[in-house]
C-alpha cells in the first residue's frame, strides 16, 4: 500500500498506522505522541497530540475525512494522502491540545527530575503558547508514597495511561490503574500496595512527563549534567535484556535507564535489579558514549568528540613557506615549456 504524508510517499504493510508510516519517512512530518508507545500494545488515542489531516481517504474512496484523525490509531489505506506539518488546521489543533494538556500540569520544571528529557517540554516548546489563559486553580492531589524505588507526582500526570499498560503487559498482576473519572481521574495503586514486581521500574521510562520518576535519582543531578553511556551486563532475570544507558557523574553511576531512541521510547525493557541495584562501575561493561540529537540539551558541556592535536611550525614556514610552494612563488624558471598546451 502506498501512503503519502506531506507529499512524501512510502510503501507500507496493511495494518500500519499513519504514525508508524510517518516514522518510516522520518523528519519533521512525524506527529508528536504523548500516549502512543510502539513497544506497548493498546496504547494511543488518548492525548490527541498526533492529530493529522487526511485530505484523501483512499484510492477507492477519495473523499477527505471531515475531522482531524489521531494518527496513532488510524490505519493506512491504499493511496491515502495525509497532511501533518503542511496543514494549518493540524498546527492549530496541536496548539489547542498542548494548551489543554498544560491546564493542569504544574509549572515546576525547575524542580522536576524529568526536565531535559520530558516529552511535554518538547511538545510545548514546539506547539505551546508562552503565556497561559487559565486563571482557575490547578488540579492538585495529596502526595502519595508508592514505594521506595518509584516517586509518584500525581499533579504532573497527563493521564496517558502508558504506565498502566506497562503494569498490565510486563508484570504479572497489575496493582495500579486509573481511579475516578474526568477531572478527578488519577493513577494510583488500587490497594496502596507497594510495587515490588521486577519490571515495575519501566513505568519510569515510559512516563512522558515527570509523574513517575526514579527515587534513587531524586534531586541528585539535572539530566544534562550527567554523561550518558551505553552499557550492558549479563542479567539473569528472565525477560531482561541487560542493555542500558548509564547516567554518570564523574565515576559515579547516578541513574540507570533503558536505551531510548529518538522518539523517547526504550529499545527493550530492563528489570529493577539492573535499574536500581547495580550502581557500581564494575557491574557494567561500558560500550561508549550515547549519541543524542544535535540540539538536545543533554549534549551541553559534553566534550566527547575526538580533538586533533595541532602542531604549529612557525618560524621557518611563515618566513619562507613550504618547500614545494616556495618553488611556485619564486618561479625560478618558466614552468611551461613552449610546446606545452596552456
Amino acid at each position: 500500500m502506498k501512503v503519502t504524508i506531506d507529499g512524501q510517499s512510502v510503501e507500507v504493510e496493511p495494518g500500519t498506522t499513519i504514525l508508524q508510516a510517518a516514522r518510516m519517512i522520518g523528519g519533521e512530518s512525524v506527529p508528536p505522541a504523548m500516549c502512543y508507545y510502539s513497544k506497548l500494545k493498546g496504547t494511543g488515542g488518548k492525548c490527541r497530540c498526533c492529530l493529522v489531516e487526511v485530505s484523501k481517504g483512499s484510492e477507492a474512496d477519495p473523499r477527505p475525512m471531515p475531522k482531524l484523525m489521531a494518527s496513532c490509531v488510524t490505519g493506512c489505506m491504499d493511496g491515502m494522502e495525509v497532511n501533518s506539518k503542511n496543514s494549518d488546521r493540524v498546527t492549530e489543533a496541536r496548539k489547542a491540545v498542548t494548551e489543554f494538556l498544560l491546564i493542569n500540569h504544574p509549572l515546576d520544571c525547575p524542580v522536576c527530575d524529568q526536565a531535559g528529557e520530558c516529552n511535554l517540554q518538547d511538545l510545548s516548546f514546539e506547539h505551546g503558547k508562552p503565556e497561559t489563559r487559565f486563571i482557575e486553580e490547578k488540579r492538585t492531589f495529596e502526595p502519595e508514597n508508592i514505594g521506595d524505588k518509584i516517586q509518584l507526582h500525581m499533579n504532573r500526570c497527563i493521564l496517558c495511561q502508558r504506565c498502566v499498560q506497562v503494569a498490565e503487559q510486563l508484570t504479572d498482576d497489575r496493582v495500579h490503574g486509573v481511579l475516578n473519572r474526568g477531572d478527578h481521574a488519577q493513577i494510583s495503586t488500587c490497594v496502596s500496595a507497594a510495587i515490588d514486581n521486577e519490571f515495575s521500574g519501566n513505568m519510569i521510562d515510559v512516563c512522558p512527563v515527570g509523574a513517575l520518576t526514579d527515587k534513587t535519582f531524586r534531586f541528585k543531578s539535572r539530566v544534562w549534567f550527567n554523561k550518558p553511556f551505553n552499557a550492558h551486563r549479563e542479567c539473569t532475570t528472565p525477560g531482561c535484556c541487560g542493555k542500558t544507558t548509564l547516567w554518570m557523574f564523574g565515576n559515579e553511576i547516578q541513574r540507570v535507564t533503558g536505551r531510548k531512541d529518538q522518539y523517547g521510547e526504550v529499545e527493550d525493557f530492563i528489570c529493577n535489579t539492573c535499574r536500581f541495584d547495580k550502581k557500581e562501575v564494575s557491574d557494567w561493561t561500558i560500550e561508549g558514549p550515547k549519541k543524542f540529537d544535535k540540539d538536545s540539551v543533554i549534549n551541553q558541556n559534553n566534550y566527547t568528540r575526538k580533538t586533533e592535536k595541532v602542531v604549529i611550525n612557525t618560524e621557518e614556514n611563515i618566513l619562507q613557506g613550504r618547500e614545494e610552494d616556495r618553488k611556485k612563488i619564486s618561479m625560478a624558471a618558466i614552468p611551461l615549456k613552449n610546446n606545452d598546451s596552456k
Partner: protein
Amino acid sequence: MAVEQISLSGRKKVVSNKEMTFIEKIYLLTILKGLWITLKHLFRRKVTIKYPEEIREMSPVYRGQHMLMRDDEGRERCTACGLCALSCPAEAITMKAEERKPEEKHLYREEKYASIYEINMLRCIFCGLCEEACPKEAIFLTKSKKIANADYSREDFIFGKDKLVMPLEMAINNTKSNTAN
C-alpha cells in the same frame, strides 16, 4: 631578491650597526630630550585614579557581585534547577541539590533547594547570563560596586552560599519597605 628581504607590509627595516659619533656617545642630548618629555607629561591631565580611595563612576548597566535572593518571607528562592550553570559560558557555577525536609519549610521556597551553590569568581566574566536564565528570579548581579576582593589563595575566590545568599536583615528591610508602600 632573497625571500628574507621582501617586505610585504613595507615596514620591514634592516638594522644597521653603524658606529656612534662622539656627541652621540656622551648621551647628553638624548637625556635632555627624554627629560623634556617627562616634564611635558607632569603638567598633563592624569588618566589614573587613586583606586581604593577614589572609585570611578559606574555605567548604569554595570553588573557586580552575585546575590541569591530571598522572597518576602525570607525564604531562599533558588531551587537548584541548574539553568544558571548551564547558561554560564565560563562554567563558573556548580551546585548540589537536596530535598527540603518538612521542618525546613520556612527556609526554602520550593521542594528542592541548593545545599551547595558555588561561583568561582576567578572564572566568572560577569556577563549576566545566569541572571537571565534563572526561572525563579533567584540570582541577580548586584550594583554593589563589588566584584571580588583581593585575596591570596585560589580557594578564597570560590564563593559559597555564605557569601552569596542575601543577608537576612536585608530581606527583612526589603519586606518592610515593600509592605509600607
